[in-house]
């Protein structure tokens, strides 16, 4: 995934970051009861640098951010 790609971050109930690739998806999944509610917009490169093990949902499955980085090669 290109580091410049804008991704959308939400938090689960434990505060863990979940990364989605569209705002529409983030709005669908956002959890009002999460410790940090709402949606945060970031470049994928920021996620990679600060949260390499953040869960990124791409095509029906979760990757760690770092796994999508090496695929991009």
């Amino acid at each position: 995934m290109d580091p410049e790609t804008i991704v959308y971050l939400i938090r689960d109930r434990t505060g863990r970051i979940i990364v989605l690739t569209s705002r529409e998806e983030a709005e669908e999944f956002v959890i009002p009861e999460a410790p940090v509610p709402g949606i945060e917009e970031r470049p994928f490169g920021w996620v990679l640098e600060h949260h390499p093990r953040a869960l990124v949902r791409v095509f029906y499955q979760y990757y760690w951010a770092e796994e999508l980085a090496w695929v991009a090669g």
Partner: protein
Amino acid sequence: MKRNVILIMNDSLRRDHVNAYGVPPPWPRPGHEEEPFIRTPNLDRLAQSAMLFDRYYIASYPTVPNRTDLYTGRFGFCYRGWQPLEPDDVILPEIIGRHGYTSALFFDTPPMGSNEYNYMRGFDAWEWIRGQLGDRYITDPRVPTPVPADKHKVRRMDGTQQYLRNQRDRRYEKDYIAPRTITRAMEWLEDNHTLDGFLLWVDMWDPHEPFDPPPHYLALYDRPGYDGQHIIFPQYGRADYMTADELNHVRALYAGEVTLCDTWVGYLLDLVERLGLLDNTLILYMTDHGHLFGDHGLEGKPGGQLGNLYEPTMRIPLIIRHPDGLGAGERISPIVQPPDMLPTILEFLEVPIPPTVQAQSIWPMVRGEASRIHDYAFCGRYPLGTMYSYTAATFDGWAGPDRVASALTVVDEEWSFICAPETWPSHLFHLVEDPDETEDVIARYPEVAARMRGALLAFLHEMGAPAERIAKYAPRS
């Protein structure tokens, strides 16, 4: 007098969830530490009078490609993907039909029948027991479809809700889908057991997701007092979106489904015995692939760069009962693969094996005339680009329309080599010392990896893989 064949399929059933295999539990069961890890008394009973295959490895993965292999006796993943039968495929029910056998298929596995996939072709009778995941069946908007889990944890929320809608009329255990499928197969058997030579194929999608067993089966395995989220169709890929307690619950749901299937397979086996068919009928019990529940940090059947095929997915149960007692009670250790089932069935029925078949009958090995039929197992999936229908493709774990080639796995009796395409990393595991595949030893044993890669390339070529596909797995300079 002709003989009969009964083939029983449970999709997604792990080898370590058949008690007869006696393998160490892959994880603990909180609250049930002193109890059996899994209860499969009926499969265990079958195994006592049958052959238990220790190295039955998938070939084409997952569901539909596996059925293609079984129908054709070919290693489809070399050159084709998740797709309908081709008009010129030479398939089991048509082959035996030409020799006077009657065939019947009872299935609830939706991709066999939906989107014109036509896996009913050639059967004299077939029935699709409706209502599994993805089955466009009940539209009634009044049916409540609550999924008590956060949306980001559920794979295909719309399909899961469709599944729940499909269960509108369910009340008792007998109303669950696998019991309904078995019941219809038993009714057919009662009516047709006097036929002179038949094939009965019973194809259940359970214990595939949604993991939705009757509550009394879940109670056998779930942590008492669990009150967390009820994730019946967990997202694929990295599993750490679930808490440890949630993952444990998912594992319990799955185990409950396994025991439900075992119960009803037991009813079918009892009927086979009551009807006096055991002396004249070959019984094959199998699955098509496993499923990951946190193994290697993964859930489900992930694809793409997370799609490496490990032992829990590849090495699956196979139990074959020969009516003459051949191999009864024995464990068969040499490698066997799904395409071998077609020539095995045909030889048993004394029907000539057509030249289209690429696989081998197991009988020479069972009779002791050959020590093995394969030196290696070759396991894999064909990239998504060959799909006929994206909707159908998303049934079973494809990662997305990126058309990447997935890694292929080569196994012998000592090693497992995951041969990655292009620039992805390959891996080597020493199964004898490291059966859980925790330590990649490819750097220590490059000659083993090279040998297995060479075997894979030769196999792909022999099986008719296109040159551009073979090239993706060639050694890198």
